[in-house]
């Protein structure tokens, strides 16, 4: 843990984005997580993604539950809205906030304990309902705050730092998200920002339930030989499907690639995802194929990363519910509390 505030000085040539902010302006206070924690790299990736997308900090709400991962929103986007909820309840709070104010960008930060154990039901339902959000799980396969017990995403056969063998099956959050209808599913690694940052950018622009499972080694309790979530293990077993560029409408695509190696996905809002394919035969629009591919590769001991599935025409919860265009906080009292006459009318409809 570091007590010192990060010095205010930044590199003299640090670029400003379209809003006039530098990347440093999107930071929070210095992290109090263990030195070297993968979660800090995810925070840095989020900062970079938001900075590069020119997003105004006050249009973002970051929500989290309990755990090491859920502490991280303190350390990024210091000028954004934040809500640190009860353990495992971030998805519900996020859903409620989203229903009340659909104008904000919702960033849910959770961990493997917070989402795969206590909050598994909450996770499932927020994805199933298609809440417009970016749901990032910082997945280290261990309970770090309680000193190293296996979590629900620990692989069967993995060894704890003290040598115990995990005999339980792991919960595959990516598989669940695919099954439950998430319209954007990715997996990445905290140690690979070149992959992670564009993935977060694309997810932030996705108008539906976007889920990213981000492997994030715990240097204190899960970075040893025998761990399947260590830096070395992930680097050895990482099989990237594709490499992603996120392109907002303003930028032109200038680089040319061999036909068949690049796929451009134009999204609903005109922004584009450019996928440079590494696995030739993989189709990012086929949910069922994605599911079986994940399982096949996992059986071979590979950790598949990259953009796994995307629906370019997603629908979100507001569309399902046919809610009003404006966010609730912009409606006057009269619209929100229409009074006895309106209630009588509704009641009459049920008689």
């Amino acid at each position, binding site marked *: 843990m570091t007590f010192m505030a990060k010095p205010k000085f930044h590199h003299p040539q640090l670029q400003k984005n379209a809003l006039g902010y530098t990347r440093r302006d999107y930071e929070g206070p210095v992290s109090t997580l263990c030195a070297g*924690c993968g979660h800090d790299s995810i925070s840095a990736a989020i900062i970079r993604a938001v900075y590069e997308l020119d997003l105004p900090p006050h249009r973002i709400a970051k929500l989290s539950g309990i755990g090491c991962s859920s502490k991280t929103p303190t350390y990024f986007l210091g000028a954004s809205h934040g809500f640190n909820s009860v353990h495992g309840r971030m998805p519900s709070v996020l859903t409620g906030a989203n229903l009340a104010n659909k104008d904000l960008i919702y960033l849910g930060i959770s961990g493997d304990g917070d989402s795969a154990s206590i909050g598994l039901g909450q996770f499932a339902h927020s994805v199933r309902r298609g809440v417009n959000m970016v749901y990032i799980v910082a997945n280290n396969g261990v309970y770090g705050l309680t000193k190293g017990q296996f979590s629900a995403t620990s692989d069967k056969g993995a060894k704890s730092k003290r040598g115990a063998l995990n005999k339980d099956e792991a919960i595959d959050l990516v598989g669940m998200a695919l099954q439950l209808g998430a319209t954007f599913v990715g997996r990445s690694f905290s140690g690979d920002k070149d992959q992670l940052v564009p993935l977060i950018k694309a997810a932030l622009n996705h108008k539906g339930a976007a889920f990213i499972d981000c492997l994030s080694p715990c240097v204190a309790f899960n970075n040893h030989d025998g761990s399947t979530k260590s830096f070395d293990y992930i680097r050895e077993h990482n099989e990237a499907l594709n490499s992603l560029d996120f392109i907002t409408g303003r930028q032109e695509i200038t680089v040319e690639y061999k036909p068949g190696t690049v796929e451009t996905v134009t999204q609903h809002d005109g922004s584009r995802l450019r996928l440079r394919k590494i696995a030739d035969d993989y189709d990012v629009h086929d949910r069922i194929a994605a599911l079986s591919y994940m399982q096949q590769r996992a059986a071979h001991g590979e950790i598949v990363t990259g953009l796994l599935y995307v629906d370019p025409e997603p629908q979100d919860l507001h569309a399902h519910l046919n809610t009003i265009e404006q966010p609730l906080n912009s409606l006057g009292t009269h619209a929100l509390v229409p009074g006895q006459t309106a209630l009588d009318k509704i009641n009459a409809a049920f008689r």
Partner: protein
Amino acid sequence: MQPTDIKNPEYFHKVVDCQWACPAHTPVPEYIRLIAEGRYADAFMINWKSNVFPGILGRTCDRPCEPACRRGRIEEEPVAICRLKRVAADYKGDISARMPPKPQQKNGKRIALIGAGPSSMTVARDLAPLGYDLVIYDGEKKTGGMIRTQIPKFRLPEEVLDEEMGYITAMGPEMRLGQRIDSLKELLNESYDAIFVGTGAPKGRDLFIPGRQEASAHIHIGINWLANVSFEHVTKIGKRVIVLGGGNTAMDCCRTSRRLGGEDVKVIVRSGFDEMKASPWEKDDAIREDIPILNYLVPKEFKHKDGKLIGMTFEKVKAEYDAKGRRNLVPAGEPDQYFECDDVIIAVGQENAFPWIERDIGLAFDDRWNMPVVDETTFQSTLDKVFFGGDAAFGPKNIIWAVAHGHQAAISIHKFCQGEDVKDRPPTHMNITSQKMGIHEWSYDNAISVNVRTAVPHQDTHIALKNLRAEVELGFDDRLALREAQRCLNCDVQTVFNNTLCIECDACVDICPVDCITFTEDGEEQDLRTRLNAPSLNLDQSLYIANGLKTGNILVKDEDVCLHCGLCAERCPTGAWDMERTLIDVAQAGSACCTK
């Protein structure tokens, strides 16, 4: 790229920009930390070892360290290094007990030193403890050379000069003051084992334009006039004074004039304001004393009437730059300008003069400049026992250069007298010590102060102008000194990387406030500089390279704007980064590395 050899002291020495830039290589951050701790005497001794005259240089140095200061690349202003040096000198107390004692045994070698200025006195300081018999000659009755004759007392109080020269004279050299050497040939016959020439650049340049002869009673050569003021042969000047020249001597002349009765004093310079040779702060000090500086005026004629100077005419010029960017001053086509005056002081440069060195003694002079041929490393002339230093060696420079020359010449003289090869220079030594005291505790103050540069308090101008001896700059008090000392980035506390411990977790990359760390694929420097996490435009600054990482990537750290805050080391889970204090010890005569 080749991994950086951090065992070579020169690599980390270069990271300490101030020390690297200082001709005498003073370990600046080390003494600034001591000042912050209130250990002024210790800070003084560090200075004294490197630059010999901390109190003098703390007031008069040209400060090559300050433009080099890393802080100047991060915010606007560098650390006020020079003024902190003065703090060490002002508050050190009695340090006489810490001076080297007179040697018990003499080594039997006799050295003559000609001139008692900064370079000679540095040679004496370095050689006296080694047992040399030193004989110092100077034409003046007092030590100090140009420091005493040319620097006005309102910039450098005489007590400071006397004190610091006194530490050296107390080491026992024989002082033959008032004895000017008129013939090197004769001195060579006096069986000295070596001779050091530190006679400065004593000749002020004159200006031969119409009226010079006729009005000469009221036209003065700057450095001679300053010397006369210093020795109180001159005590007043006319009410209207023109000072010609744009260097520091001109600034001293105009400010001295203001104190000797000059009311309408102006400086007139050929060049533009920004190209003037004077240090910016000296120009500021002159302007503060109501002295206008007029630029782009070339002296044309001294006007006189009945043998008395009445004024000067100048031609107005403008600067034009040719294709190569060289400046030419061409007539502006405007009418000549005329300024009335009672006195003119010419301060347009100074030159070497060696009428006392015979040309038939085997000491070669170059044909073009009529200067002795002196080796730039050893300071040896073509006559092997004669060495040069200070302004006498390569023309007019600043005091700190004279000190640096003195150290090198002392090494050469020592080697020469011991029968060693003077070309075999002693190596630089480096002590390197980890500063780690706990997980996030360091034995240096790694928090970065955001204070802007502290201005030095000045004496009230009305009081200052009434007294030639009233020091204008009052110096920092302990509170201001602490505030300014905290601005130092501790560049000598180095980021040291251990590739075998690194797990490439990116924690250092993420925390670095100035984005100076990158892990990337290997490549050539030119290519690497385009691929770093922050623009790498300052090619003078090194890239710290380490390889041997598991992924095959290399570590690249751009030293340019590193704050030395230690956050990379604090956030490193494996201790692959450490903050280690380097003390770079540049060899001097008599240091362990120099005596076999």
